């Protein structure tokens, strides 16, 4: 088997006495959309934060395309092709949509220690920003301040920012969070397009979306991976049913 794009091995992270990430190992193959699901408090965001470098693990390792990145700071991982979106929208509110995306392109286009030329007139950066905005369907909102955009639009900008850095691997932390039904459907459609171009790790609560999109699913409960497999296998898995999907409420609610 070829080297996986992302390999997580025996990752452990504790908060005081609580083990938030308990010996988690998982592989994400190139071109795969790998979903991570689990009930609230299962440690999904803690895991993502260790993948992005916002939180250091106590033991274990993370490698990207064969390179150990366990202790690299966030900005270095980003340079290696890892991009993320935040669970709670995190954008530059007092910048326009285009500026937000152009900055992400700028981070990957040579040095930013340039003090004199007007960065907003750099054609390369502006074109990249507009291409990414166009990709998520927001080209017409390019010059609007992010603080004036709706929640749904901000979720899309998050995605455009991640795309503008031309990542190898996209870590999406609940991209559907807080979206309405139509907006969610739009996001699913968009992710279906994007997955053709980039490998994705998707953390999501929206079960129909996860089962519609994922090649493989890992189920996290109390910080541990209790099952990993394709959607059909996960749906049939007894442990998963008991721990998570077995909850009638969840199934009917999302069904």
């Amino acid at each position, binding site marked *: 088997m070829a080297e996986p794009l992302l390999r997580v091995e025996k990752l452990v992270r504790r908060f005081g006495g609580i083990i938030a990430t308990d010996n988690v190992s998982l592989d994400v193959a190139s071109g795969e959309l790998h979903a991570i699901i689990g009930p609230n408090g299962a440690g999904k965001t803690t895991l993502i934060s260790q993948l*992005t470098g*916002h939180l250091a693990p106590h033991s274990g390792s993370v490698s990207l395309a064969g390179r150990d990145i366990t202790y690299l*700071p*966030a*900005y270095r991982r*980003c*340079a290696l092709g890892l*991009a*993320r979106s*935040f669970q709670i929208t*995190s*954008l*530059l*509110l*007092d*910048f326009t949509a285009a*500026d937000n995306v152009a*900055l*992400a392109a*700028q*981070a*990957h286009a040579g*040095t*930013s*220690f*340039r*003090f*004199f*030329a*007007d*960065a*907003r007139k*750099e054609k390369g950066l502006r074109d990249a920003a507009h291409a990414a905005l166009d990709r998520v369907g927001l080209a017409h909102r390019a010059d609007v301040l992010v603080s004036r955009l709706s929640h749904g639009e901000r979720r899309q900008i998050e995605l455009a*920012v991640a795309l503008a*850095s031309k990542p190898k691997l996209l870590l999406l932390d609940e991209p559907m969070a807080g979206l309405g039904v139509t907006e969610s459907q739009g996001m699913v459609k968009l992710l279906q397009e994007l997955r053709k171009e980039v490998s994705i790790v998707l953390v999501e609560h929206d079960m129909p979306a996860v089962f519609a999109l994922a090649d493989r699913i890992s189920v996290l409960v109390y910080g541990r991976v209790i099952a990993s497999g394709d959607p059909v296998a996960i749906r049939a898995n007894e442990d998963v049913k008991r721990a998570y999907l077995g909850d009638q409420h969840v199934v009917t609610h999302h069904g």
Partner: protein
Amino acid sequence: MKGLSVSKAVTALMLAGLVLLPLYSQLSGNIFILTLFTRIIILALAAASLNLIMGFGGMMSFGHAAYLGIGGYAVGMLAQEGVGSGFIQFPVALAASAIYALVIGALSLRTRGVYFIMITLAFAQMAYYVASGLARYGGDDGLTVYNRSDFSGLINLSNRTQFYYLCLACLLGVIFLIWRIVNSRFGLVVQGLRSNEQRMQAIGFPAKRYQLVCFVISGTMCGLAGALLANNTDFVSPAVMYWTRSGDLMVMVILGGMGTLFGPVMGAVVFLLLEEFLSQITEYWALIMGPLLLLIVLFGRGGIMGLLGRAGRG
């Protein structure tokens, strides 16, 4: 768009006034006003440099007056040691400020928020006490600069009008540089870090090194103000570094409008004119000044520039 044009019109008027001031001073024979405005322009330069890190960069430095002292002492100490050339004094003043900023910034930028404010304040107070202890250079009493910086015939700093225009040129030059910087790649990164540091890290920018470079640029600019100030007063003392002076600079920036190009100039003009005229009326001028500033800060969000913007829209 109309709001923009009101603040632009006022700014243009103010600049025209500053350019024509020596003419008025000459015609009316009022020399005092020229001296007063030379000081205002120098402190406006200091406020503009502070605005670069505070308004654009979101770094609340409470120790910016230290650079006034460092720039000033560089000129004063060199003059005392017999080095009178401005071509040496000014570069030394800038370099000393830059080095101080580099060291202080590298240490202070490990902290955020209130801690950053306190640590920059603490370092400035240290500089203050070091200067007070310089017995050879006057200690507490300060150091008289007997000869202004000598630019060998290029420009005569002892000529009031020439000195005034030198200060004005420095101010406009620095504002031009700040304008270019804040719209450059570097400037967008620094402003992005002010807005959302976590996001900027996530898209691949190491925060600290950009903030540190910005901190050094700002400190160097303020060192220039210090060198000019020492020439203006023919004197430099630890008092220029005292924390209340750092506070004055912050007030000028906030009063005029943080993160605007000409706000700090506007703030310095209003602040220092108020101080000047209120202190002529009563010795308790601070009692009037305080509430006035409070009102502007409370009701004029965005300072004077913000008020002008809204006046234009309303």
